[in-house]
């Protein structure tokens, strides 16, 4: 079980990271706001992968402890954590020589939902619902 969910976590994390990097580049181009010093390509990929692997561990534990209700609880918790994590970019203080910090949350907030989105989208390919 863990093997499948880990594979799902890694793949969805990587896809979320790639989507995040593309989105960041689009955001830089559209808004002329460059946050690559604090949200570099490596940072975006690593954070997304971290989210995917964490989801894999959480899913396995929820499935093991809560049996049939595990998936429902996991989905709720994953979504809830994605929402709560938005406090991070809203409260963060960027280096002061970075212009327009007010545009930073607008770039990062959508990315916080990419791992969950990728996970829910790809899950049927890796793990069958009970």
């Amino acid at each position, binding site marked *: 079980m863990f093997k499948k969910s880990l594979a799902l976590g890694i793949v969805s994390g990587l896809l979320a990271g790639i989507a995040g990097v593309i989105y960041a580049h689009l955001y830089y181009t559209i808004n002329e706001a460059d946050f690559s010093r604090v949200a570099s390509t490596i940072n975006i990929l690593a954070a997304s992968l971290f989210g995917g692997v964490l989801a894999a561990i959480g899913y396995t534990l929820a499935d093991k402890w809560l049996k049939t209700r595990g998936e429902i609880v996991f989905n709720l918790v994953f979504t809830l954590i994605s929402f709560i994590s938005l406090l991070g970019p809203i409260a*963060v*203080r*960027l280096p*002061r*020589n970075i*212009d*327009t*910090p007010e545009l930073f949350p607008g770039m990062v907030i959508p990315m916080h939902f990419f791992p969950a989105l990728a996970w829910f989208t790809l899950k049927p390919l890796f793990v069958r619902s009970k």
Partner: protein
Amino acid sequence: MNKLLYPIAAVLILAASAFTFMTARGWQITDGYSITFTNDEASGIFKDFKGTLVFDEQNPGAGKFDVVIDVTSINTGNGLQNKHAKSDEWFDAAKYPQIRFVSRSMARAGNGYQVTGDLDMHGVKKATTIPFIFKRTAQGGVFTGSFTVNRSDFGIGKPGGEVPEPVKLDISVPVTKL
């Protein structure tokens, strides 16, 4: 009378031209300046700063500073805090878009200098003394100074509250010769 006209004119011209050499030197503010404010709860920078600086180490008394900070250029590193700082609760940037300092006197003080003048901030003008040092560089020089103001003296923010009253300002201004 006509005999005296030309000698007097000559003396006046000589005196005026000599005075030109004694006049304090003007400096051009260059990029790389930094205006930071800090206390335990709030800190940030002002990105836009301009003005005229006239200063001569040998004759500081003839110096003159007239500088303006654009309040809307405040950057705390957080968008929400920037908006809050510009609001009428704090700097009220819409009503008071500039912070201005105009010197009245300048003198040597210890190893450096001090300038006294009017600091006009948030619609309140208050006499303020800023100690500073001036270091020569290959390109010109750098003015650096630090001083503390009480925000409530200028009606910035509510008195008391979470943000402490004293706010330290650190200024570093590289200049080149005009």
